[in-house]
């Protein structure tokens, strides 16, 4: 009896491993994903020089107005930023979203030229030339987008360009739901 059990053991181990691998493949688990510790916590400090002439400085107060806000870190040298840009234009125009753009490690004149060429979806825009604000926000690169509710709590965090799907399934419902 116990001998027979012993022979099942390797098979059982194999089944266990196969189960784990199948789960890893199917459950959309990504061990390389950094995740975000910010979600559910108050948004980090925001204190930036304005990107555009005549703008007021970008401060924390913009994140606690009672209305949801999107914060998008971008750079003119970043190709994925180019890819997601039309989606922000749409969010600003059709959904009336308040979007704060932060030019990360970008020369202000380059970022301004980029926005001039592609259209400027940002109600507010600031410069994070040395990447200090990016570090406070747990940024790993550009683009990254944060959705912050009216109380200044981070609700969504996208690393990499946002997609059509992110927009329809997460961002727009968030904007409509967050009061």
């Amino acid at each position, binding site marked *: 009896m116990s001998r027979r059990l012993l022979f099942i053991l390797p098979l059982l181990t194999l089944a266990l491993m196969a189960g784990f691998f199948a789960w890893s493949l199917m459950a959309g688990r990504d061990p390389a994903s*950094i995740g975000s510790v910010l979600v559910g916590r108050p948004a980090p400090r925001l204190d930036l020089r304005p990107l555009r002439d005549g703008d007021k400085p970008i401060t924390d107060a913009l994140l606690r107005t009672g209305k949801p806000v999107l914060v998008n870190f971008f750079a003119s040298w970043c190709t994925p930023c180019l890819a997601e840009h039309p989606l922000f234009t749409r969010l600003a125009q059709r959904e009336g979203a308040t979007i704060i753009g932060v030019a990360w490690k970008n020369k202000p004149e380059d970022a301004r030229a980029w926005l001039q060429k592609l259209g400027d979806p940002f109600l507010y825009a600031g410069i994070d030339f040395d990447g200090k604000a*990016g*570090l406070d926000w747990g940024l790993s690169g550009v683009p990254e987008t944060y959705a912050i509710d009216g109380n200044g709590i981070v609700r969504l965090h996208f690393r990499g360009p946002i997609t059509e799907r992110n927009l329809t399934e997460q961002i727009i419902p968030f904007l409509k739901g967050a009061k």
Partner: protein
Amino acid sequence: MIAVGRAIALLLALLLASPALAVEPTEVLKDPTLEARARGIGQALRCVVCQNQSIDDSSAEVARDMRRAVRERLVAGDSDPQVFDYMVARYGDYVLLKPPFKAGTWLLWLGAPLILLIAASAIMLTALRRRATAPLPPLSDEERERLKSLLGR
């Protein structure tokens, strides 16, 4: 002979060589003790865009920012654990090359020793049981004859 000498020289040189760090001269702190602490921390923090490199080994933009932040915190008087906390607050446990021991990671830490323990005890148990239970085969007629003759009966 010369070739062997060269090979030995090369090997010795390789022994002396240390892995190149991405820490740039302009980043290095003037205070050598603070800089040594910054190196210690930098070796244990994971560059968030390069999977398995420490921030000291990586020349990624973010790694450079993190090295600078580590040094700023140290100069501001933070202790080493405070600097680690500062990074974990922003990037999560992901940023630590050595994951902390907690509910989600106990299997990672204890899995290998646990399996070793189970295997060792299984082997010991079977060995003990074999010794205790294996009955001796009875002597054959031939052996019995030989035994008789040896005993001189």
